[in-house]
């Protein structure tokens, strides 16, 4: 009743091909973006804005990147953290060494560097398949970590290996306050999410899905699988790279390899799986879930007060987190995005049961 696609008569090809063909969806997205851009930064406190929403947004972007590679093209990657690192290190070098470049240009260039690195490791996927690719991306993770800690030039010869990021300036305005940093992340993530949504609706995106569903069949029907796989690795690298640059400049305030360890790669993989493989919406839902879950567990733990020692609590957190992941996979292997689709279905036929 509420979410009807019947009666939405289309009179042009443009309407037929719209991202959100149903008016309700369209208005919901516009409203969400308006609230996110115009209301949230002025209403939310610095804790929510800077410590919850900002990391949520940036990690969503990385999750979209991994989703393009794993969810759409079917190439399991355990190296997203490393590609974020490439983006972050490239961005800090560009911003500090070439200060006359506007920072959006630097970030796009940094993303392209990460995309090129992704492409290089993607070349391996042309020869090997399945879990072997996953282990190859693991190699990327360790190799890039090693490069970043062993070449002093990359950290601008800082002895500690940790580079503080300068404040970003655009047209003389410095993005140092929490709301302004949030807005930079918001605009970037929304823009790139739309690009991703459009990419996967195009023939290039359908080629990715064909490779995922059956590589041999795709090749036989004329899909250029080499090109599709390399596209996936490059685009995924770009998204992760931009996310890494945002993470370093807007969230951490410094560039260090610890922030982009294997742990980060797994965290992003969890976001993609929990959110839903092959879904842009799922990337956002998954990121929100993974960022909020430890906060929720920690808050729940304060109810017990002093009864829990910190080391016990840390281990309980691990247990609950692990158990929830398994439970979630058992209950809904298709992820949170699937729940959203189910909810839409319910809205469409409400109040009728079928």
């Amino acid at each position, binding site marked *: 009743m509420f979410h009807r696609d019947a009666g939405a008569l289309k009179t042009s090809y443009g309407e037929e091909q719209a991202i959100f063909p149903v008016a309700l969806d369209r208005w919901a997205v516009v409203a969400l973006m308006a609230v996110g851009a115009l209301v949230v930064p002025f209403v939310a406190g610095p804790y929510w804005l800077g410590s919850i929403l900002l990391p949520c947004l940036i990690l969503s972007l990385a999750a979209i990147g991994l989703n393009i590679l*794993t969810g759409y093209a079917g190439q399991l990657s355990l190296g997203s953290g490393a590609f974020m690192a490439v983006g972050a290190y490239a961005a800090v070098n560009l911003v500090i060494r070439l200060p006359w470049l506007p920072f959006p240009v630097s970030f796009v260039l940094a993303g392209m560097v990460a995309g090129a690195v992704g492409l290089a490791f993607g070349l391996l996927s042309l020869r090997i398949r399945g879990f072997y690719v996953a*282990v190859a991306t693991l190699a990327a993770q*360790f190799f890039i970590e090693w490069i970043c800690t062993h070449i002093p030039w990359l950290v601008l010869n800082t002895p500690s290996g940790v580079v503080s990021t300068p404040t970003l300036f655009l047209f003389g305005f410095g993005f140092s306050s929490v709301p302004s940093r949030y807005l930079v992340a918001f605009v970037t993530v929304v823009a790139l999410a739309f690009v991703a949504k459009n990419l996967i609706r195009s023939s290039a995106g359908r080629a990715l899905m064909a490779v995922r569903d059956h590589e041999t069949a795709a090749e036989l029907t004329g899909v250029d699988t080499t090109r599709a796989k390399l596209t996936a690795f490059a685009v995924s690298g770009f998204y992760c790279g931009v996310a890494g640059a945002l993470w370093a400049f807007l969230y951490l305030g410094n560039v260090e390899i610890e922030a982009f360890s294997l742990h980060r790669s797994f965290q992003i993989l969890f976001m993609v*799986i929990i959110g839903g493989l092959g879904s842009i919406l799922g990337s956002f839902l998954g990121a929100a879930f993974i960022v909020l879950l430890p906060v929720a567990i920690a808050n729940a733990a304060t109810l017990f007060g002093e009864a829990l020692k910190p080391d016990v609590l840390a281990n309980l957190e691990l247990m609950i*987190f*692990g158990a929830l*992941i398994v439970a979630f996979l*058992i209950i809904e292997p298709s992820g949170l995005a699937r729940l959203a689709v189910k909810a839409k279905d319910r809205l469409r036929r409400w109040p009728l049961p079928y």
Partner: protein
Amino acid sequence: MGDFSFFIEVVVGGLLSGVMYTLVALGFVLIFKASGVFNFAQGAMVLFAALTFVGFLEFGLPMWAAFLLALAAMLALAVAIERTVLRPLVGQDHMILFMATIGLSIFLEGFAQLIWGTKVRGLDLGISDEPIEIGGILISQFDLSAAAMAAVLVAVLSAFFSYTKVGRALRAVADDTQAAQVAGVPLGFIWAVVWGAAGFIALVAGLVWGARLGVQFALTLVALKALPVMILGGFNSIAGAIVAGLVIGVSEKLAEIYLGPFVGGGIENWFPYALAIAVLLIRPAGLFGAARIARV
């Protein structure tokens, strides 16, 4: 002592440390072979087994009793995993099962440390680490014992798979799950057996690695050492895991000593991976892995 005998010493040292990698890789291969699951939790199982063993030792139990109790704990864990994680996920995509084992490994890391605490414990197996001299080459006695243990383990496992009814059923499941089920092989039981065997391997690996590194959280990281061994040898080949373990052990040591100084050291994290991938580019299913034929 000349350059050549130093070289031999490095090679022998590498072979022996390769055996330690093989120990961990065997656990992965066993589960992948029998159920197609890439069990990321193997590293956490190593930690869990070693902590349990040391925990029982601290109660004042003799070593054999602690070993048996830890083994019993690993078997119970295997049954529990089969019931709670694998059974509800039968027939799901491999990626989902892989993710479930990552969740499982996080759970186990928390669980093991919740029960036994987080402090680093030493583990003395009563084997001296004094190097002995054989034909002018110094060899660590401990590494030699570890290699012997691994050899016994592999022999026991191969005998189990070749000569017992359960072992044959297990190979049937590995070969063709559906056909095995049709022939009346109880899948759940077989999976529990496989995970139990992987738990047994984890216990042995945990003892050897625990004695070397101390029983601590870092034990979970030995899983990352075993991955290049697996891809080099092929995911479904026990012989491959053994050969690849030795190859990786030797080449890692050689690279560390002869290549490391030129690039600033610390290459042991990624060198085995680079080597394994270089081989994969020539043989995409690993040295001993079964090549898959794609059908439409």
